[in-house]
């Protein structure tokens, strides 16, 4: 009835191979650059493969560059942004799934608009807001801004997960005598923890990878996020591409692994949250 699976495999990989190559080639070069001996980085003609693998580059980069500081900054900002976004987003998502109220549609529309207004058009205003509030280079305030831009995403994703937790369960708890708060804490919350974790991780990755707001508003290099720290390294007169690539790997690999693992959740969440 069907084309044989073997034949399908052949066709599939044949069609996919150019895309797969274009995706993987840069990553292979990244890794090879990271562990090349320094003199081979600028050899003419260039060597694709290093003559020896300098894995110790991964250690020297810590002492030679500011990367550790930037990583810590990013960790702080992303964690704080995630906490704030979840703390304000989860109650909103709960209300959206559990109550039918006046203004529900308006709020939904508001979220849609905030999601669409990308930071680039607001960044001048954001910078002036930070100047006015006297919080330029404040990592905490940057985290608040990140949280604001992630609220819509959080509410949508959480909403689509919360909808899968039957309302019956809480109602049953009420009938058994549990108050609203108690049923929330003992019935709803334990069941929502996995969903909240997933959405939190996404928000973390979003904040970790943010570029334009940090780039436009952070002035002092000691408050740079990892993204800015790496860009800064490519601005020197003589660029240490091996250090740059190691930093790229350090900045990307953990979140890439996290993200790849989360991917399947995003497909479901996005389509039920944003499309429906």
């Amino acid at each position: 009835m069907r084309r044989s699976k073997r034949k399908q495999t052949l066709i599939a990989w044949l069609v996919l191979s150019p895309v797969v190559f274009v995706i993987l080639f840069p990553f292979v070069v990244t890794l090879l650059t990271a562990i090349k001996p320094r003199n081979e980085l600028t050899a003419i003609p260039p060597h694709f493969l290093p003559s020896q693998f300098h894995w110790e580059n991964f250690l020297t980069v810590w002492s030679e560059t500011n990367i550790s500081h930037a990583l810590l900054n990013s960790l702080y900002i992303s964690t704080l942004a995630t906490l704030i976004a979840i703390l304000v987003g989860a109650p909103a998502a709960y209300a959206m799934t559990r109550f039918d109220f006046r203004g529900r549609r308006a709020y939904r529309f508001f979220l849609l608009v905030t999601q669409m207004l990308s930071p680039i058009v607001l960044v001048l205003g954001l910078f002036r807001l930070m100047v006015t509030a006297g919080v330029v280079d404040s990592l905490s305030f940057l985290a608040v801004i990140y949280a604001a831009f992630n609220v819509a995403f959080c509410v949508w994703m959480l909403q689509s997960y919360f909808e899968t937790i039957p309302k019956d369960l809480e109602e049953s708890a009420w009938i058994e005598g549990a108050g609203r708060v108690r049923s929330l804490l003992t019935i709803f919350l334990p069941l929502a923890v996995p969903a909240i974790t997933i959405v939190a991780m996404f928000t973390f990755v979003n904040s970790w990878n943010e570029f334009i707001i940090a780039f436009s508003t952070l002035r002092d290099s000691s408050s740079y996020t990892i993204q800015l720290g790496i860009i800064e390294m490519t601005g020197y007169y003589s660029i240490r591409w091996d250090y740059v690539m190691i930093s790229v790997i350090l900045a990307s690999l953990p979140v890439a692994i996290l993200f790849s693992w989360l991917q399947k959740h995003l497909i479901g969440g996005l389509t039920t949250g944003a499309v429906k």
Partner: protein
Amino acid sequence: MAKMQLKAIKKDYSGTAILHDINIQIDEGEFVVLIGESGCGKSTLLRMICGLEEISSGELLIDGVLSNHTPPQQRDMSMVFQSYALYPHMNVYDNIAYGLKIQKQPKEQIKQKVQKIATLLGIEGYLDRLPKNLSGGQRQRVAMGRAIVRDPKFFLFDEPLSNLDAKLRVVMRKEIKLLQKRLGTTTIYVTHDQVEAMTMADKIVLLDQGHIVQTGTPKELYDHPNSLFAATFLGSPGISLIYGRIEREGGVAHFVTEDKIAFPIQNLPSLQENQEVILGIRPRDIHLSTEAEGLKMDVLIHEYTGAENILYGTIGNNEISAAFSRKEPFENANTLYLVYEVDKSHLFDAKTKQAIL
């Protein structure tokens, strides 16, 4: 003491009325079944009774006390949901004990009560399992255990058996009835299954499109349906309906179908000449007769259920179903001659669909 009274209860959803003028009296220890087709408002009514839905107007009296606005937590009811609503992250023990813990009962006492209920329901071996590791019947029992253990004033059931297979449904039906009898707790039970209603109820409340059609004991509803809806809703196989009109001759009313077949009816004084009526005959009120005395039925389908022979066919152009004892031989029967118990037949006005008395 656990009585309930619903007086002129109404429910509106943004201007659309979905329950109209509901009046029900529920006595202590009574087993009341709310029955109707899906969308008739029976589940909404149950949710209003336990406080999950607001009552738009009317009065809900619990033991004589107006309780329209009492929160569900304080109504002292327990409910078995259609989905069972077992807490998926708690094991069977914690599911059953949840309500008792909220009441801050002593640990030892909770343990005793849960053990006792679990034994009563035959789930004592599963107390540390999570709901997802239970079969449908076991989940059903846990849901019942959770309802029973608090010894509430009222049990509420919202189509509790609809997720079970046919065999288990019969078993659980008996168990619920037995438990309710033993505990004597006033019970309100919602279902769309007429067999459940007939077998379990002390009192049936039949709903249609947000109205109460008829209230009464199963026997009252079965023997004296007040309307076409009530007559067709109860009974399996369903009541046969024959359309015709009344011809009066002297003081006697006769029923004649369009194809000029005369069916015997009760000679009710209220029947008018030329009135269009519907004659209802229950399949089990039909008996075999002779060519000389009976109506001629052409058999179309013969079902042998083991307990009975059920025959579907026509008398003239009129469809009819009849049920007979399993002992009667019907192999290859094409034609039968039937009589029925005229005093048990029903007449309905074709326009108002109400019973003619």
